[in-house]
């Protein structure tokens, strides 16, 4: 992110009311968030836009959040990621997840201050 720029993030979740409201609340906090409800739309949007970070729902129809992360990373190797999950079941996590990456998970419903803290932490780290 260039200093002074408004942070840009991409929100992907099949619950439209969730991502649209979250985007509006983030905007009030000086974060520009685009939102989509399908992985295909996310890939399309990411083709022509630069995002500092993507917030991905773990469980989505067609492809899950981890598969989407792989595809988005192919397009934008420097993009950072946070995962939103409905529950903390072990099988929701990929086997090869590192300890650092576990901290990039947020359980629904999440507090917006925690979300912003996580976004800041992930963007200031080299991981994610």
């Amino acid at each position, binding site marked *: 992110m260039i200093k002074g720029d408004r942070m840009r993030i991409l929100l992907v979740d099949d619950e439209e*009311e969730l991502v649209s*409201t979250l985007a509006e*609340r983030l905007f009030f906090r000086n974060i520009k968030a685009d939102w989509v409800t399908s992985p295909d739309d996310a890939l399309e949007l990411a083709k022509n836009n630069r995002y500092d970070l993507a917030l991905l729902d773990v*469980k*989505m*129809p067609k492809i899950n959040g981890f598969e989407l992360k792989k595809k988005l990373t192919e397009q934008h190797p420097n993009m950072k990621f946070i995962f939103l999950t409905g529950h903390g079941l072990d099988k929701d996590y990929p086997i090869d997840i590192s300890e650092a990456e576990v901290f990039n998970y947020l359980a*629904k*419903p999440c507090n917006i201050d925690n979300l912003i803290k996580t976004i800041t932490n992930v963007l200031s780290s080299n991981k994610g």
Partner: protein
Amino acid sequence: MSKYNIISESGLEFFGLISASVSHDIKNILAIINEKAGLIDDFILMSEKGSPLNPERIKIIIENITKQVQRANGIVNNINKFAHSVDNYVKIVELNEILNLVIKLSSRLIAMRNVNLEIRHTEEMVNIRTSPFFLKNLIWLCLDFALNAAGSSKTIGINAIRLEKTAKIQFNQLDNLTNVSMTFPTEKETALLNILHADLTTDQQAKELLITLPGDINSLV
């Protein structure tokens, strides 16, 4: 493993799967309500700093929260009906109602598979006396199989038919049936079919799977 152990294990797995899926749905609804409430809070904070509060906007947000509460209520009603499936070992059930409930409870699991489900209701009620929980478990296992057999059209049809002494549940448009039917039915479906006195057949030409249930399970015991 004995037939009863297989059925117990399958039943617990089924209960766990449905509970996890439903809890995921409810978490999503709670997340929406949380954000909507947070948005109202944001507007109030901004109004305290001088931005005018827009009552129309607040009204729309509240209407949406009400919709989400109704959505959650529908889900809780369905899981409650499901939980009561084990109250009676045998009772009279309406097959269309049972199919609807299994499909609603597994809607997220179905959506994950990216398959459209067409439920074809007949006007006639299809009442049978059977074991409600075991039947729901068998329907889910067959539906799970049918989703794998959907083929490229990604659409399957389901319907219930009442015959003279039996009733049938039909899963059709299974374009990929030939490729996936080698290992089906497994010991789980076989044990459930046995306890329900039911039969399962697949017709590769018609691309369909058929469960045949007795009209009254008690008449066979």
